[in-house]
């Protein structure tokens, strides 16, 4: 505890200089870092959050249950499926609905596509921060084929709102598996290029190796989550620890590394991209036939929408669903998103809105790493560490 009390230590003789970084800075922005420097060495650093605090939790209390789906997606725009899925899982637990198997597989499919492009996003931003524009251009360029895939599946570029209580919004197009295979082959080829030009690049290694080392016991103690946790040697992944959707049937590995430095965090992301591709291939192979929408709600559709669903395999909710009431009670769900674990906790009093809505995002839980890792390092290491955390401020501030 004492380590947190005196994070900004004021020196008596004015030897230390307070350095304000942001909120307008060359990195991703949205936040201010208050660093105290002694020459070129950062003595301590505190993140100043709240620049993108938009009060999702308060707004959710006056929104209907279905209206909250797009709302929870907004905070983490690069990784929307995780929030969408976590919220719908929590809501389904409250409503007592079980989606059919095909919907479970489609959810898994979208979640993994999203995980890959979220990791590419993280790699790209990391590249900008350590001054490697090539990494940014490559990662953001390679993100586009995946976004295009998700767009074919859901109709939107990044804010999918694909997962709805009781199933998913539309079925996958018939030629989708071939397109996925094409993209996956492309990404596989590209990952080898990344290996040659980025992972084995001496400049990148010099910037990242041994920088910002997070020890295993500290990672556990501080409740870190996601790839940052696994890079410190903790094999915790919600997909394995508390499996949801189709993950129990799927064979994949949890990528961990022991070093805990910025390079390890980067390599865990690259490893997870490979694992996600494995998952996507299995999902497409094992995809069962059947409905994509729970029987319980299908019965409630009016005849014209039933006909529409049968013809196009797209679910359209009638207006009656706007007044979806959840029974009194509470439920909690967690999902492994690209950046880590999303926890959503809903307290309902039986009305049309949740009584209390709580969303804890991975970035918010990882924010403590700034003050923990950026201590007694050089000023030039701040972006290297910041980028390696894949920290997305709107997600942290909600």
């Amino acid at each position, binding site marked *: *505890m004492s380590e*947190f*009390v005196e994070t900004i230590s004021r020196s008596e003789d004015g030897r230390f200089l307070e350095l304000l970084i942001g909120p307008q800075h060359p990195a991703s922005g949205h936040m201010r870092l208050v660093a105290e420097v002694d020459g070129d060495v950062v003595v301590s650093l505190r993140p100043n*959050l*709240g620049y993108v*605090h938009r*009060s999702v*939790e*308060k*707004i959710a209390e*006056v929104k209907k249950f279905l209206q909250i789906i797009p709302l929870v997606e907004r905070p983490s725009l690069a990784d929307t499926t995780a929030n969408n899925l976590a919220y719908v899982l929590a809501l389904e*637990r409250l409503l007592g609905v079980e989606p059919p198997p095909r919907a479970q597989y489609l959810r898994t499919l979208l979640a993994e596509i999203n995980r890959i492009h979220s990791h590419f996003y993280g790699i790209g931003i990391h590249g900008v921060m350590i001054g490697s524009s090539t990494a940014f251009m490559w990662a953001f360029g390679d993100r586009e084929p995946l976004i295009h895939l998700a767009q074919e599946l859901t109709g939107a570029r990044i804010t999918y709102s694909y997962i709805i209580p009781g199933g998913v919004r539309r079925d996958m197009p018939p030629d989708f598996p071939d397109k996925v295979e094409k993209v996956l082959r492309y990404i596989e080829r590209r990952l080898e290029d990344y290996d040659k030009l980025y992972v084995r690049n001496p400049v990148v290694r010099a910037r990242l190796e041994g920088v910002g080392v997070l020890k295993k016991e500290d*990672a*556990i*103690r*501080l*409740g870190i989550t996601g790839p940052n*946790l696994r890079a410190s040697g*903790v*094999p*915790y992944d919600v997909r*394995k*620890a*508390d499996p949801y959707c189709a993950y129990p049937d799927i064979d994949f590995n949890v990528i961990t590394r022991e070093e805990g430095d910025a390079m390890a965090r980067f390599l865990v992301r690259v490893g997870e991209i490979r694992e996600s591709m494995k998952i996507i291939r299995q999902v497409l192979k094992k995809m069962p036939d059947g409905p994509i929408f729970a029987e319980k709600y299908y019965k409630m559709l009016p005849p014209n929408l039933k006909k529409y669903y049968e013809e196009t395999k797209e679910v359209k909710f009638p207006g009656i669903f706007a007044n979806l009431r959840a029974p009194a009670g509470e*439920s*909690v769900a*967690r999902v492994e998103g690209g950046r880590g*674990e999303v*926890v959503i*906790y809903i*307290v309902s009093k039986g009305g049309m809105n949740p*009584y*209390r809505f*709580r969303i*804890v995002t991975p970035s*918010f*839980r990882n*924010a*403590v790493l700034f003050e923990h890792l950026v201590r007694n390092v050089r000023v030039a290491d701040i972006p290297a560490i910041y980028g390696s955390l894949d920290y997305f401020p709107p997600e942290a*501030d*909600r």
Partner: protein
Amino acid sequence: MDLEEVVQRVKDALSDLEVEVQEKGPNVVEVKVNRENVIEAARKLKGLGFDHVKSVTAIDYPNERFEVVYHASSYSNLELARFFLVLRVDLPYDDPKTPSLLEVWPSVLYLEHEQYDLMGIDFEGHPRKERLLLPDDYEGIPPLRKEFKIKTEGINA
């Protein structure tokens, strides 16, 4: 490890404290404790292997009580990681104070700070009493309380 075993372990560990342990859902163990015992209970639960906190939620029941809910789980014991441990503390409405669990679980640092900021719960012993997410010059009712009204839409506006 199944749920009953976890519940039994939690009950055994907290046997000398005044707590209420029950199972909620397929993987949720709920522990109700009053604020005098919360640090002691948390310490014992940490001894069981619940080593970090995932979420701290304060709930406002106007003119009745506040409730602080901790969701803890485990990283070091992967069998235990399947379960949520929910620690609930009731606080009187006119005196929303509870001891901070920072010395037991350092992972509550930002989570408790956020609830102090947005709900106005005073976590005693928490070193940070400034604004976290709200602007530094914010004054008035903490925004997540029910008496803080925002605009609504539709017929129930």
